[in-house]
């Protein structure tokens, strides 16, 4: 059938056959054909970043990517991070996912798969980013819940854990520490 594609996509390390109409986006194929619903849809058309996936290690928007044009590229979705971490001999979720969990960065959680993948790509190219680096790298991922602070703190926590550094005290921790020292 014209406009109906049978093709292969490499998703999270596995190459698998896909059968979907040509006008389906990568987001639609991931969510509704492959059952990988971790990639979210927020704005329909490239304005929010919730559908961010990594293609050859770089964050792109799945809602604007024509699925079949991604043949031959390595696609990583949020579901791919933990298995990759386990394959590499780690335990549990990817350290960045754990840091997001640990630091309260997940409120409603809807923007976070995309956010975490943008942050993962940032750390892969820049192991110790400044807040400015983070603001730049995450500026295509809208979060409506956090005001971004706890997202930055999560990334800093993951960096601190990896490099065995002492993370900076958060504002409310510093406030508590100050109170306890005057007590």
């Amino acid at each position, binding site marked *: 059938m014209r406009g109906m594609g049978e093709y292969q996509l490499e998703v999270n390390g596995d190459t698998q056959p896909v059968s979907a109409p040509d006008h389906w986006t990568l987001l639609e194929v991931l969510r509704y054909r492959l059952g990988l*619903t971790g990639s979210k849809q927020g704005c329909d058309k490239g*304005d929010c970043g919730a559908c961010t996936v990594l293609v050859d290690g770089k964050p792109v928007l799945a809602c604007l990517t024509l699925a079949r044009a991604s043949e031959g590229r390595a696609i990583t979705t949020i579901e791919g991070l933990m298995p990759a971490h386990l394959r590499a001999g780690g335990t549990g979720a990817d350290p960045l996912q754990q840091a997001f969990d640990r630091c309260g960065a997940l409120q*409603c959680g809807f923007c976070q798969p995309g956010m975490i993948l943008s942050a993962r790509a940032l750390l892969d190219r820049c192991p110790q980013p400044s807040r400015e680096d983070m603001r730049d790298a995450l500026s295509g991922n809208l979060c*409506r819940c956090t005001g971004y*602070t*706890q997202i930055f703190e999560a990334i800093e926590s993951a960096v601190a854990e990896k490099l065995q550094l002492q993370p900076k005290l958060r504002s*409310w921790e510093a406030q508590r520490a100050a109170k306890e020292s005057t007590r």
Partner: protein
Amino acid sequence: MSARDLHGPGAPWGPHEPGSKANVDFKVVGRAHAKVDGLAKATGAAVYADDIVLPGMLHAKTLRSPHAHAKIRRIDVSKARALKGVHAVITGDAMPMKYGVIPWTPDENALAVDKVRFIGDPVAAVAAIDEDTANAALKLIEVEYELLHAFFDPHESLVRAEPAIHEGRKEGNISKSVQLEFGAVETALAGADVVVEDDYFFHGSTHAPIEPHCAVATYSPEGVLTLWSATQITHYVHRALARVLELPAHRIRVIQPCLGGAFGGKSDPFSLEFCVAKLAMLTGRAVKMLWTREEVFYAHRGRHPMYLHYRSGATKDGKLTGVDAKILIDGGSYSSFGLVTTYYSGQLLTGPYHFPTYRFDSTRVFTNKPPCGPKRGHGSVQPRFAFEVQLDQLAEKLALDPIEIRRRNFQGDFTRTVNGQRVTSNGFLQCLDEVERASGWKARRGKLGPGRGLGVAGSMYISGTNYPVYPNDMPQAGVQLKVDRSGLVTVFTGGNDIGQGSNSMCAYIVAEELGIPLERIRVVAADTDLCPVDLGAYSSRVTFMVGNATIDACRKLREKLVAAVAEKWQCAPSRVRLIEGLVIDLDDTSRSLTSVEAFHLAETKFDTLGSTGSYNTPKLGGDYRGGTIGASPAYSFTAHVVDASVDTETGRITVHDVWIAHDCGRALNPMIVAGQMEGSAYMGLAEALYEEHDVNRFGLHRGPSLLDYRLPTSLDTPEFRALIVESIDPEGPYGAKEAGEGPLHPCLPALSNAIYDAVGIRLKHLPFTPAKVLAALRAKQESAPLAAQGGKR
């Protein structure tokens, strides 16, 4: 208040005596634990409404009105029905029963009946084998409209009753009007040393959760309707479905899956919930409807635009004598929560300052725009903005420091407001102290260089209200506990976790009360078949009410555990402590059991283990009509200092820092509280600087997309400094109060006040666009060319 409501703010156990209020006596509460669903969300495993795929599921789409105000003369769906792949097409006559989230004002239909009231009003719905087919069918539906005059300006709705947006109302196009006066305001203002009178405008803004609304329904052969919906109030959706579908409520099950943000925007029952339900019933298939982002903008229910006029008087030492407010509220096309909004616009201003006299006159009108409703800080963010700017104007006239004037008017704790609301704990003064200290207010103010300044504002907000939207005396929150022999405790709560962390809050409380690790607790929430009723996630009620209900359930279960162990050990129950997965004897440390063993003992002694708990508010509120609206068992208090600068050439405002001090009673998890504070401040700044929800001259939404409705990105967001103040409320769960909405309020006026401090212009009309700032700077320069340098000082 019955005993079930009040357990005191102390720790259940701990090194000190039970009931100790110190944070150190808590094992779980007061610490930064991860959330129960954090890892599921971080790994993509969490299931949101649109992640649900059921066998044979159909996809539904909505046909919407292209006209702002029109009668429907004729609808012909025959071509759509005939399209291959279409399973059902419904229009308004399929569900003629009107509904409304407030039972007194049912003026909505699932699909338009006879007329449409804004561009985007739902008219018909199609269920088909896929979205493309459903979309194609929509284009085949023929609707003939008779156009009516459309209202876009609320001032016109105020004076013009015809054509009526809602027929058969004696008030014309007025949705609700409230006039209340407490004390002799005119006399008080006449006797004031200084009076400030001014106009303010608060524009419309919307919630824009990143998850669009989505609902999935099935109808079983036995006649049970199941609806999964991205709602923040399962219980009201349940009630509304029963009414509109004319089904007994016991045949309806409503489940809220993981929710991708709400902020008030998922509080009303929505058209898509009724449509998928009806379509599932008609087709015998599962039906899903996912709204596009554009449709979410039409569904709206966001911040009401308000035209606010305030007059405030003070003595020369800065004490308020009276406050007089007149407010025109643009409600959009339906009532939604509007009755409450109208009251809130006046009722929630009476703290943290003492008003000796107060009057407000608030009128909400209908216009042909997307309906407004409750957005974070429902009805009270707008008057708060106006009043806190006016308070700065008073301080300026009196040559008082803006923080000082706020201190001088502090109402105190354990007091009553001028409109008869009971205030319990009140940490507002500490909030002011914290932001003053942390911002370096004294040392830095006036010394930040040209174009940069500091501003302060305060606020209060409710922790739930004792006004359930439908009158009843049953508990507002219920919780049920079930114990498994493995040691797992399952909490069943009707409370809606919308990302604020209420499921985690329940788990922390159970862990604290039963002395078991968090990993042995699971929370099942917001499923009407499984969970006891809770009124849902609105009015910042969940921590306070569900938290208290959870404690209540735990204490009943704990009593059984202690009794069973005490019997085995032949000791007084007061010696038995549940702590960190163990049960210990305080007087004989050689003796201990695991909590699992204790559960087994208790199940053996009593019966299958479980318990229920509930919460209801005490009798509250002023003794007058509407006196219970805005009556809360406890109020939170907030102060912000904003550090901002203005580029006088471009008019662009840069916010450098926001210090947020918030009295949340007790921070059950300070990290989550800080997240709520930061997120609130973000949302406030966003609407102050970037966002505007409005229609153009045709009544069309100006830009219903996340490109044109500009949510700030990480590059546009300043540093937030969350400072937690813990006043330990006597009635909150362990002393906790709300933290999810209050911390938004002061952000906008504090920013306006900072801009005044920076460049001497009073921004009274939101949003503060660069064009407006530039115009104000030019106006200032023209009126006082010599004083142009260095702001007002």
